[in-house]
């Protein structure tokens, strides 16, 4: 029970921890106050609690695929806010202007949605053992261990990003966020395939023999670049569109004199 709990909690915490640590590192290179992270955790905790307590109702929406649809919407929203964030940071830097409240809010919204998504699943998991103290104790201890490993990996990412040449931090951070974002978009597509809202297809490839998703490397790559051993063509296409969209938009903005994003 204990080991299961370690793995479940670690898997959920890892993805959110990665986003939080990279945003924190980028934030350190910007003139924004670090208090955004407190707001993000607060809103995220409320969101997770609301979602977890209503999970039965949500599951019944859209003929039983409500969970997939809501989770896919959450993932797409996180993707959009993360991309707006990296684009805004880029535009601010190009114009030699300091970042404003909008940048903080983009970070708060993306992180609180990520915590809502991952946290609600953890709350549902723990709720299943709450009535049995003999089971709840090992599950909770495992959870603390799993969360600690996830947070440690996040801290490692944070310090790695800040200990390289500080001028590179926003660039590498942006690349990591773009990869995580593309992974979120492809997972959203997978959820909609599971709900039969998008067509199901035979997988493009099967790399489960040489890099299983269950392996440690597989799990880390899943959190980092959205690695799937058996992605469908549609998922692959959405991954690349999601990865290239912010780059294309930044190029467009450069050409159009960057009038699309509101200036402060």
């Amino acid at each position: 029970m204990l080991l299961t709990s370690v793995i479940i909690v670690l898997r959920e915490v890892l993805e959110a921890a990665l986003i939080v640590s990279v945003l924190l590192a980028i934030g350190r290179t910007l003139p924004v106050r670090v208090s955004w992270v407190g707001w993000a955790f607060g809103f995220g905790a409320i969101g997770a609690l609301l979602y977890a307590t209503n999970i039965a109702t949500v599951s019944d929406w859209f003929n039983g695929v409500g969970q997939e649809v809501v989770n896919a919407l959450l993932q797409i929203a996180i993707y959009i806010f993360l991309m707006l964030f990296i684009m805004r940071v880029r535009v601010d830097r190009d114009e030699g202007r300091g970042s404003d409240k909008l940048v903080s809010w983009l970070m708060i919204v993306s992180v609180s949605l990520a915590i809502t998504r991952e946290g609600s699943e953890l709350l549902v998991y723990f709720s299943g053992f709450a009535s049995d103290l003999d089971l709840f104790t090992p599950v909770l201890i495992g959870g603390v261990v799993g969360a600690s490993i996830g947070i440690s990996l996040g801290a490692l990412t944070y310090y790695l990003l800040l200990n390289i040449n500080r001028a590179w931090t926003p660039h590498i951070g942006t690349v990591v966020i773009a990869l995580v974002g593309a992974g979120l978009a492809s997972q959203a597509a997978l959820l909609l395939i599971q709900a039969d809202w998008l067509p199901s297809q035979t997988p493009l490839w099967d790399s489960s023999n040489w890099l299983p998703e269950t392996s440690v490397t597989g799990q880390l790559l899943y959190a980092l670049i959205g690695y799937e051993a058996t992605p469908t063509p549609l998922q692959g296409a959405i991954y690349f569109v999601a990865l290239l969209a912010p780059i294309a938009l930044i190029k467009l903005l450069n050409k159009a004199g960057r009038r699309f994003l509101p200036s402060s």
Partner: protein
Amino acid sequence: MLRLWVLLVLSLVSIPAAAKTPVIEIEIRNHLFEPSEIVVPANTKIKLMVYNRDPTPEEFESYELNREKVIVGNRKAVIFIGPLKPGEYPFFGEFHPKTARGKVIAR
């Protein structure tokens, strides 16, 4: 089991163009899948109906099928799978992975 075979036979004899998505039902009871082995037609989309008869939540999970879904206690869940190449596709209950195990066999 009989119902599954009937479904399988029906899905094989039906005209592909007019074929409806075959529905297969699984129950979760005492953190076990019942039946734990289901046979489905290969290269066909399947609608899995998973009934959780336990009061506690479970998460249907399969790396091979690329599926993951929380099923609240005493509720049912719909999960679409496939089309699958012939083969075996293990699945498990992520919240009770030691007992809740099963596989989809595509033929």
